[in-house]
């Protein structure tokens, strides 16, 4: 306490020496600046921590996942002219090709040529479903039955691991030998984006889950978007201020914060009771997620609508537009970018949602991509969850690859949302 202040307590007209100009003050000031710096670095540290965690997570997933887009394959030349397979064009039509070729003994043919090329040991390491890829090739072009052709076919999972330097020494030795001979290699697995789930990590694909996600999202969007927008318009523009609208408002705000698993319980207890046979179907999944997404859209929508300046409404009303015309001619078009941003964010959340879908059965093993909204399906995040539970090390890479696919989708959606927000964010 400087005397300056005390002395001025006697209320003389002006302080002799301002208390804020003393050396003590300046000493204190240096301390204060140190504290300032510490505080600032603490904040910077917090940010850096978050960003580093994010980068670490992304890096882990990417490093693990890049391998997931590849698989170990063996080179198998097949001379079909010796195989004696009949390319009955009728049987090759449509979906029957696999079955027809299987009955004609294609698996044995593949096995035979594999033994020719790789020896019995090596042929044994060919994946048990590898012949199906040959079958697909034949179905695509029956002409190859008249010539010989070289295929790269997936190995068994163990053998793939052995190529990575894992597993029993004998296997590893064989792998080294074949790979030195150029008969074993890791290749980009384009089928990963085209196949569905499988038991063997060498055979799995992400398309089944991706398609399931897309179908589910379509249902979600078709339900949540119109209902959300209309509800937001009602609440923001028309609702009288009374107990009823309070109830609506409170329930929307709460729904937006209810744990997602509760929506799963709702789906299980209500939707699956009403439609017991659509268990695992994108229809039910979409319905459940729509209820979850709708409040998000309503809240985003209301904020966007609120941001439209009242002067626009006044202007339209004052030339005789009806409230409904004001809303649909002026407010909605102006609020749309904001609503869309909110919708995309809500949809992104729904796309990443797992727990509620587990409860309504979208966790089943389904080996073919879903055909429509009512056929059983799984979705990307659930697929990730299921694969993460598999013990096979092959699945570790595949899981990370699936995560990459999911994250790419989400990043794209977020980027669109951020772009929309920056592009159309208006301050009136």
């Amino acid at each position: 306490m400087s005397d300056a202040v005390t002395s001025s307590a006697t209320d003389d007209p002006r302080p002799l020496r301002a208390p804020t100009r003393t050396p003590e003050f300046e000493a204190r000031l240096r301390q204060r600046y140190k504290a300032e710096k510490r505080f600032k670095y603490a904040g910077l540290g917090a940010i850096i921590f978050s960003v580093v965690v994010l980068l670490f997570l992304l890096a882990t997933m990417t490093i693990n996942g890049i391998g997931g887009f590849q698989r170990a394959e063996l080179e198998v030349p097949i001379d079909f002219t010796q195989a004696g397979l009949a390319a009955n064009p009728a049987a090759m039509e449509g979906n029957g090709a696999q079955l027809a070729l299987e009955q004609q003994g294609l698996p044995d043919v593949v096995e035979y040529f594999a033994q020719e090329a790789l020896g019995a040991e090596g042929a044994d390491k060919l994946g048990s479903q590898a012949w199906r890829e040959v079958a697909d090739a034949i179905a695509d072009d029956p002409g190859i039955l008249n010539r010989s052709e070289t295929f790269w076919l997936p190995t068994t999972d163990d053998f793939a691991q052995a190529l990575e330097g894992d597993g029993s020494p004998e296997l590893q030795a064989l792998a080294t030998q074949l790979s030195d001979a150029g008969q074993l290699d890791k290749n980009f697995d384009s089928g990963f984006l085209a196949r569905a789930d499988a038991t063997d990590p060498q055979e799995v694909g992400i398309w089944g889950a991706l398609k399931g996600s897309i179908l589910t999202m379509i249902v979600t969007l078709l339900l949540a978007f119109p209902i959300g927008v209309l509800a937001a318009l009602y609440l923001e523009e028309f609702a009288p201020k009374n107990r009823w609208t309070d109830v609506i408002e409170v329930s929307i705000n709460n729904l937006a914060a209810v744990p997602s698993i509760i929506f799963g319980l709702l789906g299980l207890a209500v939707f699956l009771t009403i439609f017991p046979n659509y268990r695992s179907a994108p229809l039910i999944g979409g319905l459940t997620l729509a209820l979850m997404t709708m409040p998000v859209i309503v809240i985003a929508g209301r904020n966007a609508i609120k941001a439209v300046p009242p002067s626009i409404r006044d202007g339209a009303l004052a030339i005789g537009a009806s409230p409904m015309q004001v809303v649909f001619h002026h407010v909605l078009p102006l609020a749309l970018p904001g609503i869309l941003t909110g919708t995309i964010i809500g949809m992104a959340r729904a796309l990443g949602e797992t727990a509620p879908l587990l409860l309504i059965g979208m966790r089943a093993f389904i080996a073919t991509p879903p055909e429509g909204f009512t056929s059983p399906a799984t979705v990307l995040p659930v697929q990730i969850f299921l694969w993460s539970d598999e013990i096979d090390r092959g699945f570790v890479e595949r899981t990370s690859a699936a995560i990459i696919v999911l994250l790419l989708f989400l990043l794209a959606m977020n980027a669109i949302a951020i772009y929309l927000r920056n592009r159309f964010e208006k301050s009136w």
Partner: protein
Amino acid sequence: MSPAILFLLALGLGLAGWLAARARAYGMRAASDTGRLASLPQYHGWYVALWVAVPIVAFAVLWSIIAPQIVLNSVLAHPAADALPEFGFKRTQILSEARAVATGAAQGVFDPMARPLIEPFRGAIERTNIIGLVVALLLGFAGGAFAFLRVKPDFRARTKVERSMLVLLLLASLVAILTTLGILVSLVFETIRFFGMVDPVSFLFGTHWAPDPMASADNPDVTRYGAIPLFWGTIFIGAIIAMIVAIPLGLMSAIYLTQYAPPQVRTWVKPALEVLAGVPTVVYGYFAALTIAPAIRDMAMSVGISNASSESALAAGLVMGVMIIPFVSSMADDSIAAVPGAMRDGSLAMGATKSETIKRVLVPAALPGIVAGVMLAISRAIGETMIVVMAASTAANLTGNPLESMTTVTVQIVALLTGEGSFDHPATLAAFALGFVLFLVTLALNFVALRVVKKYREAYE
């Protein structure tokens, strides 16, 4: 008659009505001397279209409920139905199989007794379809004619159309209430059934959790349904460990971003944090289970803690905390931003440094909002499922050691419901009771927090 066909009919006839009425209104406008109608022609079009389509759609909904009954009655009157068993589940089953085959929905029947009923079903369905179609057409035309005749120059079609639009908007906003009710209904009934089997006291206060889905449902062992270990695990992971990570980091991030970061940094870091919030929880779960949990276990082992679990509460809690950081930071960001700039200016003008202003004015002023944000974050953490499902365990331990495994309410809900347990076993119903508790707790947290946030925003508006 599939409702889809009736809907298409409604659409088609509605369009016709729309065109006709609009043309008529244009005609009237041309004929009138002012050149003005009370409403624009297109509103007359909509008016008539609604009068055509709404009755048909309403009828379609009604018909889809009563038509099966009509079909059923006529099938039951058929002699082939005499062989049916008396009332009961079996009878229902047979009838529905026969119907499924008759409509082409199924290829064959499960029960041979259903086979003779297929033909009667076909016939009856065909008849009712024709009736439905005729009635729908009549309704559509009647409504259309009524509305069409009202198209007059001074008829205020717009008011009517807008009123029906308003009804539509109102209905949309009621969906939220229906959803809330749906949640309540689906939780409450099963919970009540559960409490019929296991008394609430042993559920809420018991300390041993080991439901046995295989045990007989008639006389469940209530001592295995003590949920305290779950509640504790939930609180320990979600409200304690996760918050120890999320609150300081989130708050400091928000402070740095809003108060210190140059705009350049903010434009990049903010979206990055949003990405952190947008990463699906299953990815975090995988990250926790694959990377963090083993790391923590190894670390604990290396300092000589031998009983560290590879599903420690710590791993789940830490990752959950990281997931919540952006959530806390954006809530804190909002609250601090809601403090009027005048407060900050006032403090700076007194000669306070930035950090003094933040610590002594901004944060205290934003405290209600921050606390509410933390409550929301907690409610989110305790409702979070996938991280704990993947990184925590199903072992219900009542312990304070973060290196041991624990389980949470959400993990148990998933565990109990992902099998296909039957809905009359207490182990299945327990999931609903847990869900109900979770719902109530998060509801209370959210409700209070939203109230606080709102009050607090209003205070500064």
